């Protein structure tokens, strides 16, 4: 019984982890139908923000929950203004430009902080017990934060004026701009928001994974697969994608080890796309956010 609970906890953590690293990407993809290839580097920047801030004496919670999203969000807005907005409507070029940005950021961070790990920070919470088994309290915290993030994003999209404008722009950009919505401003804000959420995720994961200039590459494969399998609905897509892929990854990783888990994830995603080329939310949950 305790073993089952412990395994379920790990499974839920895997799913939450996947959802956390993919959500920022999904926001940008949902709005602009563009995959941000610099997503991994936004995560990396979030991690570096936390490390630099805690080394400077800032409380780790403030660094993770406030500074990381703020800094990366601002970087996101700058990137949108300087780079992305010249390329709207040219999807392939946007992809390539964000890839260039990804390399640029890796190079920049390597030049500033060096190629090896900056100081590592240990997870701030202790161990919780599930019967005879123990689990990391920090993992529980991450699950809770992911859930709160989903609820907050749902509330923003559903209840605020910004959310209404964003949903309108998502469905039909021409019509919204005809109705007086500044779509470029909406895109700028959503890109910043997506980057901010990504920064938060990167900051939160920094104590678990450590930070390296090239750490982005370890996240992006999973994040890409999750978002693509989920489809363009931001919340329903990320949630369904993470539950399906996180579940499969967890089960395979439990049976055979982490490598096969990742391969299983990829194979599932490719077979899924053969059946549903527009992702899960292209076929099911269409009306959802």
């Amino acid at each position, binding site marked *: 019984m305790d073993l089952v609970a412990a395994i379920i906890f790990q499974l839920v953590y895997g799913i939450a982890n996947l959802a956390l690293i993919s959500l920022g990407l999904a926001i940008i993809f949902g709005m602009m*139908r*563009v*995959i941000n*290839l610099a997503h991994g580097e936004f995560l990396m920047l979030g991690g570096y923000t936390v490390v630099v801030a805690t080394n400077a004496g800032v409380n780790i919670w403030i660094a993770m929950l406030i500074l990381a999203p703020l800094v990366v969000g601002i970087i996101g807005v700058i990137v949108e203004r300087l*780079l992305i907005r*010249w*390329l709207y409507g040219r*999807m*392939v*070029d946007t*992809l*390539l*430009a964000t*890839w*260039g*940005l*990804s*390399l*640029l*950021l*890796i*190079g*920049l961070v*390597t*030049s500033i902080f060096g190629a090896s790990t900056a100081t590592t920070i240990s997870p701030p919470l202790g161990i919780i017990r599930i019967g005879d088994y123990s689990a990391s309290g920090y993992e529980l915290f991450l699950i809770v934060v992911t859930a709160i993030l989903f609820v907050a994003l749902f509330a923003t999209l559903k209840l605020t004026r910004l959310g209404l404008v964003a949903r309108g722009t998502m469905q039909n950009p021409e019509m919204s701009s005809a109705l007086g919505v500044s779509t470029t401003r909406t895109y700028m804000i959503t890109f910043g928001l997506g980057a901010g959420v990504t920064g938060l995720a990167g900051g939160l994961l920094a104590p678990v994974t450590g930070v390296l200039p*090239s750490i982005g*590459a*370890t996240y*992006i*494969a999973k994040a*890409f*697969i999750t978002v*693509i399998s989920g489809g363009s609905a931001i919340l329903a897509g990320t949630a369904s994608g993470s539950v399906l892929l996180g579940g499969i990854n967890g089960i395979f990783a439990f049976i055979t080890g*982490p*490598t096969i888990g*990742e*391969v299983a994830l*990829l194979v599932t*995603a*490719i*077979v899924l*796309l*053969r*059946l549903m*080329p527009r992702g899960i939310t292209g076929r099911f949950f269409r009306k959802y956010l």
Partner: protein
Amino acid sequence: MNDGNPLNSMRPVIIFALIGVIFMFTGPYVLQLFTIINLTTAIALAVLALSLALVWGFGGILCFGQVAFFGLGAYAYTIGAINFGGSTWAILVSIMVSCAFAALLGYFIFFGRVSDVYLGVITLTVTLIFFSLIRRTSGPEYKIGNAQIGGFNGVTSPPLNLPWDPSAFLYPEQVFYVAMAALIICYLFCGWLVTTHFGRVCVGIRENELRAELLGYDSRLYKLGIFTISAGIAAVGGVLFCNGVGRITPDVFNLYNAALTIIWVIVGGRGTLIGPIAATFGLFYLTSALGGQSFLNNNLVLGAILIFFVLLVPKGVAPTIVGWVASRRKPRRPTRVRRRTSLRDEANKL
């Protein structure tokens, strides 16, 4: 392209191939051995660039993971050569493995009618998963036949040998001849392929998939075809690469190399074949030079180059030059009635 005579439309390709042949035979007499060995690696990468130039520039397929087929080819060759005790069959196996994998992946992608953006991201993801998969195969239990996969450290690749004579392996200078010959043959093959009916249909699909389908062509099959062929060419590059370097490590599959391949084609120009090859040699020497100093990071420079070209020179160098030359040449021949040629038409000749 001019009069429908295939030899005419292939004229620029043949000219460039002849320049390549001259270089192939004079190179070893002029250059030092160290340069020759370095060049062999650059030639292998040029074959990779050529394969992406074919599938992206002419097939319109945005494959971000061309290095997956390149690396797979290199691994298949190395493991095959260790097991067979000679390189002859290993080369064939390498090309077949790469093509088979591309055909399988391509089936899911093209028959699922996955869109451009998805395709790029999926192929990139496949590459990254290869990277993490092979990195974890360092234990002695991971072996295929007699070959240890070797995880992070990779495998030492057996050198090429004369066909069906494993004892007569080739020296670095001879490998250079082989590599150069392979590049020229692949270039001629690609140049010929795009003038065939198949190649023209692929270009048609690139320009307008719906229209091509309405004319009765099954775009899925054509895309699968050109995707598979380009994977085979990438595998040839992989075989040359692991011969040039002497070993193959999972690093071929990393994000940096995947980006590099894209950059060669962007810089050289989509829709040309010689452009990406030239860009490969140029950037290979640029990155080697940058490796010697520590002020500017390689990633930084390549990222800046990629952004610069996407924003300011989206057509790439070769089509821009061709367009410029064509616009200069026009006024000098006022009597000849020229067909309206687009930049792309001009570029296609290369």
